[in-house]
């Protein structure tokens, strides 16, 4: 080496470096997606938004979701091929990640993640619960499938009735007013409408439905019928449930669609609280009327209780009102017409006006009278939370005029600024142990 001139040594070194960098770049480009070795990063970016970095199912986006995201720390899984108390198999977990849970926010990751990445996520999710280290999955014995036939469906209908399925799912599977069902975490759950199989979480085939009957849906009111029903009856019930499917709107004719929406409106009119709950949820009222922490997570116990502060130069600091039924600080103080006038005309109970933003009253004015009534009916049932909201804090006149000058003449874009925390009297509750367990 000593005889090699220094310059040549440097050139050789540079060449080796270039080769190494080139190889690294080549490897990075050949696999466009991150390697599964970085599974924590993959989980934190793809899953933690809902399931939380600690796997407890209370990620920042979890609060509005129904059903709630899974808490991985207990090792209880709904959609399995294993006995009622058993942990799922790896393939059960893989299937959920791959095809998702229809009708929920859990998407199928097939086509977005590679098989290796999804397998790595299965392993990562398992390590949140000690059960996977100490227990083995106990697959149920799946008997030979009984092909569907009018006779089998007839038997299935009889078994559906004798097993009491209708108590939650309603006669004919179209849903029953079973009251608020709860899962073992205390979250609201509802019995699916069995005539809408496109939203079956675990799949819509007879074999999928048979498995749900056989294994139960753990930690929910849906029991396992493995020991309480004859196995062949479970196949018959599965065939019966498959036969209940109605047409979805995307397969209907125009007349059928109109009739369907009309009958839906009739059902909504008969059950305004349920319709109102759905509207308040999907119109994202809680997006502004529930205060959040720095990660955007809803503060526990303050759902719809207002308290989020919006700074709108030039109009001042405005805190979102308390929409719960509380008589002193919430909507309990106001009449139905006051509430409707506020969210459809932007006129407050005292006659003062709201700005046309960020509260979208000009859009909500287009709700049918029936839907407006449903929203009020539901808001009346939201449990009261005492959270006194401070009045708007306006800018002083000189500051207002100066800011207006900057905005109108200078063309300055004053952003709307949203602050975390609750500006109302209830303060900022820390996540309670109960809330954390969800």
């Amino acid at each position: 080496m000593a005889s090699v001139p220094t310059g040549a040594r440097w050139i050789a070194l540079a060449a080796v470096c270039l080769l190494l960098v080139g190889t690294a770049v080549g490897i990075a480009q050949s696999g466009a997606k991150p390697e599964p070795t970085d599974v924590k990063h993959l989980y934190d970016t793809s899953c933690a938004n809902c399931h939380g970095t600690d796997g407890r199912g209370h990620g920042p986006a979890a609060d509005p979701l129904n059903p709630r995201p899974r808490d991985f720390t207990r090792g209880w899984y709904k959609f399995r091929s294993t006995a009622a108390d058993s942990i799922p198999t790896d393939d059960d977990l893989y299937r959920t990640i791959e095809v998702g849970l229809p009708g929920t926010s859990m998407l199928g990751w097939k086509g977005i993640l590679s098989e290796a990445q999804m397998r790595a996520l299965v392993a990562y999710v398992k390590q949140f619960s000690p059960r996977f280290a100490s227990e083995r999955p106990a697959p149920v014995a799946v008997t030979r499938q009984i092909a569907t036939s009018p006779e089998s469906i007839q038997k299935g209908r009889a078994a559906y009735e004798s097993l009491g399925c209708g108590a939650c799912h309603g006669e004919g599977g179209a849903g029953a007013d079973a009251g608020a069902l709860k899962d073992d975490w205390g979250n609201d759950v509802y019995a699916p409408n069995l005539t809408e199989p496109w939203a079956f979480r675990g799949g819509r085939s007879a074999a999928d439905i048979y498995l749900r009957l056989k294994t139960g849906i753990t930690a929910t009111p849906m029991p396992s019928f493995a020991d309480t029903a004859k196995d062949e009856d479970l196949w018959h019930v599965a065939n019966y449930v498959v036969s209940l499917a109605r047409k979805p709107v995307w397969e209907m004719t125009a007349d059928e669609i109109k009739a369907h929406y009309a009958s839906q409106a009739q059902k909504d009119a008969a059950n305004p609280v349920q319709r109102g709950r759905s509207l308040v949820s999907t119109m994202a009222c809680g997006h502004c009327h529930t205060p959040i922490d720095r990660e955007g997570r809803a503060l526990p116990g303050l759902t719809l209780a207002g308290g989020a502060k919006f700074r709108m130069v030039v109009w001042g600091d405005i805190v979102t009102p308390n929409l719960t039924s509380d008589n002193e600080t919430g909507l309990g103080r106001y009449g139905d017409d006051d509430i409707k006038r506020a969210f459809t005309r932007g006129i407050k109970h005292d006659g003062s006006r709201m700005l046309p933003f960020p509260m979208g009253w000009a859009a909500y004015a287009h709700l049918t009278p029936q839907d407006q009534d449903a929203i009020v009916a539901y808001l009346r049932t939201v449990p009261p939370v005492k959270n006194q909201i401070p009045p708007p804090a306006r800018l002083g006149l000189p500051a207002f005029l100066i800011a207006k000058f900057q905005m109108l003449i200078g063309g300055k874009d004053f952003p709307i600024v949203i602050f975390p925390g609750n500006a109302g009297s209830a303060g900022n509750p820390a996540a309670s142990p109960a809330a954390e367990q969800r």
Partner: protein
Amino acid sequence: MKRIVKWVALVVVILAACGFVAFLYFIPPLTSMAPEEFVNGEGAMAPPVDGIADPAVRAIAERGRYVLLTTECTGCHVTPGPQGPIPEMYLAGGRTFVTAAHGTVVTRNLTPDKETGLARRTDEDVKRVLRSGVFPDGRPISHMAMPWAQFSNWSDEDLHAVVVYLRHIKPVRHEIPPPAPGTPDAIVPGAVEVVYGSDAGKK
């Protein structure tokens, strides 16, 4: 004579100053315009479905229009202009959100434009965004800017209806920049989200 001119000039200047202050005070007339004007403006922005030939598609799109209108998608997705939302840029996006967890994001162009809008996306892609907050490439969407977690509670049929309606609105060419880093704290200390009222897109 000179004195009169001086006085007149003084009065004119004072009146002009008062007028200017009044202009600053009352413009924009957000709380002096009748609420119905805003309500009608909102309804007029959402195109009717009469032009859709297939009666079944038309019936579904009508439902989608109702859901989309009453959810106020316009609040964030109509392109903002100096005088407020631009009706001709209905759902063409461009409003900037700086969020604590997900950086700077700009509302997307939801019109069926071939190069910059939803014509590039499948129904499944759009539904995945609305229900799961995940872009086709797997990137997560800020739930603080876009309330997808709430929209996840739409029934499958309403979700479908929204997508059908979006396929039938006027395509608008408006390129939206990709997400970028950024933190609201750096703009206003203590803030969790900052929302701008100017257009970040390219026409």
